[in-house]
């Protein structure tokens, strides 16, 4: 049995868990809840096994020793590790706050990421390392960055849920903000899904972005399709805006108070921020100093990490000094996560720079 076998099990477990968590929300039966948690834990354990196995496979293949062979060197491996951190974070929250409803929000993210890996042409091969990645800093820098990313994505989900829960007027700014954010998210996912299903190509992600992304919709050669895509997107946004209150009623059923959501948002950021500073920025700078001879070179990845860091620093300051609570800071948390997504994926797929490893 190799790592891919256990990765397969964990993918299925997370998708199954997603369905069970949703059923749990609908019926509120404790047994269903326990089943959902069990399935998630099974998925988590087999993913952990898979990670260890892949690590070992990598170490055997490269002959570089265990410390330097962390399976965190390309997009596939980093996405897998991201899902692992996310599920770990979720399980901690479930046990700490004794609340399961939240699982219906997290397992779909895990499922989506894993589905993306399978549908797109992200290479699953173990690739030999380029010389710059052969360093003991790889393990510390990349693991800590991803733990922070996972913490930030938790804060994004709770922040978004907070906004959905607490806004009620359709002309309210924070209501418009969350409906548009969610709407764009949905539109992009659907458009990408259509691209993936239409072209059925297995190419490297940056090639996909360059030559295929949105070619079935917004960038279609036929202007009729183009206009239609824009109209449909607008309609989607309008529908989400018009019927956003349905989501609100759903979330109200979760028996999570808005205070708890606000607290989880804050705590995830309060954990993610120092880890991101140390592992992402400081360790990254030390490593860059060793490998490239500059601790800071304003390369796009570095610049975007700094922007992300600024946004979360702003979140923390506005909460501490200004005493902002609730909607205003939740908006900042949501914006912060958009910067995280761009730092992680956007920079590698859209911009060029020294940090090109993550896109292979």
């Amino acid at each position, binding site marked *: 049995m190799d790592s891919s076998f256990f990765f397969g099990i964990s993918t299925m477990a997370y998708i199954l868990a997603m369905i069970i968590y949703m059923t749990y929300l609908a019926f509120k039966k404790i047994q269903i809840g326990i089943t959902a948690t069990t399935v998630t834990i099974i998925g988590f354990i087999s993913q952990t096994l898979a990670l260890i196995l892949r690590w070992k496979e990598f170490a055997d293949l490269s002959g570089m020793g265990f410390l330097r062979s962390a399976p965190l060197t390309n997009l596939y491996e980093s996405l897998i590790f991201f899902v692992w951190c996310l599920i770990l974070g979720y399980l901690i929250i479930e046990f700490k706050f004794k609340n399961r409803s939240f699982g219906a929000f997290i397992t779909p993210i895990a499922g989506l990421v894993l589905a993306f890996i399978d549908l797109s042409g992200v290479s699953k091969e173990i690739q030999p390392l380029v010389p710059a990645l052969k360093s003991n800093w790889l393990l510390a820098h990349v693991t800590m960055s991803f733990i922070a990313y996972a913490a930030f994505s938790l804060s994004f989900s709770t922040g978004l849920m907070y906004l959905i829960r607490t806004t009620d007027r359709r002309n309210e700014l924070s209501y418009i903000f969350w409906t548009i954010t969610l709407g764009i998210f949905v539109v992009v996912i659907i458009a990408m899904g259509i691209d993936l299903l239409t072209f059925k190509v297995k190419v490297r992600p940056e090639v996909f972005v360059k030559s295929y992304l949105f070619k079935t919709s917004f960038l279609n050669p036929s202007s009729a399709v183009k206009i239609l895509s824009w109209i449909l997107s607008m309609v989607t946004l309008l529908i989400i805006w018009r019927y956003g209150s349905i989501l609100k009623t759903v979330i109200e059923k979760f028996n999570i108070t808005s205070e708890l959501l606000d607290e989880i948002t804050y705590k995830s950021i309060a954990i993610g*921020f120092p880890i991101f500073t140390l592992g992402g920025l*400081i360790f990254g700078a030390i490593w860059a100093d060793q490998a490239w*001879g500059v*601790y800071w070179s304003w390369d796009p990845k570095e*610049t*975007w990490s700094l*922007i992300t860091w600024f*946004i979360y620093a702003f979140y923390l300051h506005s909460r501490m000094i*200004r005493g902002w609570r609730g909607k205003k800071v939740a908006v900042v948390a949501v914006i912060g996560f958009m910067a995280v997504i761009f730092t992680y994926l956007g920079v590698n797929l859209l911009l060029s*720079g020294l940090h090109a490893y993550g896109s292979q």
Partner: protein
Amino acid sequence: MEQRTGKTFFDKIWDFFASIKFAIVIFAFISITSIIGTILEQKAEPATNIQILTRLFGESIAPSLYTVFNKLGFMDMYHSWWFVVLLILFSANIVICSLDRLPRILKLVKEPIVPMKEEQLKRFVMYREIVLNGKPDKVKDAVSNAIKSAGFHYAESKEEKGYQFFSQKGKYSRLGVYITHFSILIILMGALIGVFFGFKGYLNLPEGAVANEAYSGMEKGIPLNFDIRCDNFDVDFYGRSDMPKEYKSWLTILKNGKEVLKKSIAVNDPLTYEGITFYQSSYGLVPNSLERGIFLFKVISSNGKTSNLNLRLGDTFEIPETNITGKIIDFSPALKIDKNGQAFTYANQMNNPAVYIDFSESGNHTFSGWILKRYPETWQLPGGNKVEFIDYWGVEYTGLQVRKDPGVWVVYLGCITMSIGLFIAFFMSNRKIWIKIVEEKNNSKVIVGATTNKNRAAFERKIDTMISTLSKKEGVK
């Protein structure tokens, strides 16, 4: 910020720099310009950025947009004067905001904790009350033990109808934020030291060559005060692929003509001498020298006789104790043989060096063939002789990044300070606790009031455990 009347001009400036609006504006400017800087390629050829702008805004306005951005310094924006000004304003904001709030926080830190009245304690968010069996004198020790085992060094005061214990922990943790802010300034200071007293350059050093300066951009060479020589350069590939596993340069430092240091460097493993660091960054072929290198062969005859040879293209050599001679007649830096058996050069790098040798025995041509450096099976000749292709030396250069940065240790110091500051700011808290014992009908009423600036839930749990142990031990009325 409190409203003061009769503000001086200095106060106004101070308030402006300390205001959150100013912070937001600076932050927004830094972010937006940085984003533009990541989209436009920095220090690139104009054509590259015109192409990027064309893709984003269309062909018609791209050239004029380019002119505007270029005039504003966006093509090398992180080094432009206005970006440096933004960073300076950002530091000024941090300094002034910190100074603005520091007195209040210092007062809070210095302020000694004092006993409280019952009504005051009742107003705390964290407030507990139990009644224990026995008079205050009896339960006193149990209460003081409980507070001690919770990790507090307490002070005690005798009161009219009982006692009061009070204590605080981690009062200096309130300074964590300031340590973090201060660390940003240390880092920026280190960066400035690097800008003023350091340099960044590069040096392409061919195998066998010696240099005493590094280069940066168009300027003249930067003198190194010593000589550096590249003894050898080599690339290791993964298996038989063309993917480099490691590149290595063997360097020697010479001071006044004497060898003082020898080290092989690789990516992630630089060499430092007199504060100047050499990083392995690239490599390539020295132009017009492909045919002038030296072949290093180790020739082994079938009876084990060995000789090491340095040869050039066109040279003839002998296999020891035989009358076989070889003549090097062709060379390829990257040889590949196509389906029809035709040999060709597939890359402009030394990816797969190969030599074509004509062999003769006693003057009669016997056979010819390619010998490849990366394929040891081609070294074996018919008749048990062997020609090991060790290296083709003197045609490659090693690309070194040369840097002197006396500020880097200051930057690291700032990073350490920041880690400590963040740890204190996020994971330590200032906890205060008051426990008052009041006699009530021959029993003791125990009132607990507490505050913390962080993680109230954890502190509350601790207090509840404390109370439950107390009540188990002394018995609740």
